[in-house]
């Protein structure tokens, strides 16, 4: 089950906590994985740990970078079967204190790059009549979160976008889904204060934070042939923090 032997995958934001776990998990299932991120040294270090992986340095906030990354991945791998759009940033702050640039940056990196990558990847997937788009959204895109209006907008945007894409290409063997992780142990949640963590923990019926590997397992499933009939969905994986 969930065998990905020979499948060609691209994972963005691969140097992050979730991204590296997803890249490793896809590779463990047999996929050839291109990993992208902004930090070259960390990326090369990660590539050394993952067999058959290709490091591609890319800063998705740059003009044409997202589209270019797809082309580079297709060239390096000889095609693309699986796109895991995991790269994302936060610029938290209350709306009344939020700078225009904080909103723009988050939308650009989290949502616009997702659009540009999906568009670029669609050509090849349409031709081969198969493909897997997996957008890493967030529980915040579903429920909202004070101090994260920009981040929530970007993640909710990913979810709506994914549903539309899923409808457009379902007849061509291509699925598009989002994973909406809750509170996961990662560098992104590491920066929270103990008080913030405790407050969040109180809302999680499972009584613990999620592990990156638990998200990665879901990504492997969605990437697999077995998940061909699931499309346009947002899978919430959050220890019961929000039951939707």
């Amino acid at each position, binding site marked *: 089950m969930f065998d990905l032997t020979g499948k060609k995958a691209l994972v963005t934001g691969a140097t992050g906590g979730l991204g590296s776990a997803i890249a490793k998990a896809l590779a463990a299932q047999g996929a050839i994985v291109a990993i992208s991120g902004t930090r070259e040294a960390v990326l090369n270090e990660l590539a050394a740990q993952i067999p058959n992986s290709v490091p591609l340095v890319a800063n998705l906030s740059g003009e044409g970078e997202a589209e270019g990354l797809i082309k580079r991945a297709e060239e390096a791998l000889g095609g693309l079967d699986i796109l895991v759009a995991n790269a994302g940033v936060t610029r938290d702050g209350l709306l009344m204190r939020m700078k225009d640039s904080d909103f723009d940056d988050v939308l650009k990196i989290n949502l616009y790059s997702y659009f540009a990558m999906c568009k670029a990847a669609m*050509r090849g997937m*349409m*031709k081969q009549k198969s493909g897997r788009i997996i957008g890493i959204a967030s529980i915040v895109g579903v429920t909202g979160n004070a101090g994260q209006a920009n981040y929530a907008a970007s993640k909710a945007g990913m979810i709506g976008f994914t549903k539309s894409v899923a409808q*457009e*290409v379902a*007849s*061509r063997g291509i699925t598009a889904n989002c994973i909406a992780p809750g509170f996961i142990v990662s560098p992104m949640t590491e920066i929270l204060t103990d008080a913030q963590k405790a407050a969040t923990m109180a809302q999680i019926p499972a009584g613990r934070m999620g592990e990156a590997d638990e998200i990665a397992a879901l990504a492997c499933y969605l990437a697999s042939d077995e998940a061909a009939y699931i499309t346009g969905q947002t899978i919430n994986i959050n220890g019961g923090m929000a039951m939707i």
Partner: protein
Amino acid sequence: MSEVLEKVKAIVVEHLNADPEKVVENANFIDDLGADSLDTVELVMAFEEAFGIEIPDDAAEKIQTVGDAVKFISEKQ
């Protein structure tokens, strides 16, 4: 011109599973040949590949009939 027309016809027949007799110059992909909007995107991709040309998005939108495609491709070559 006729060579391009024949090649375009063959691509349309194959991609849309269309009746070859209906694939005439003024046949509209969507209205006459049963294509949906995604089919037309695929057709344009197939033309690009078969003729080794690039069809920009704004031009692609105007290619709605077999004749439109033949005209555009002939001018490009």
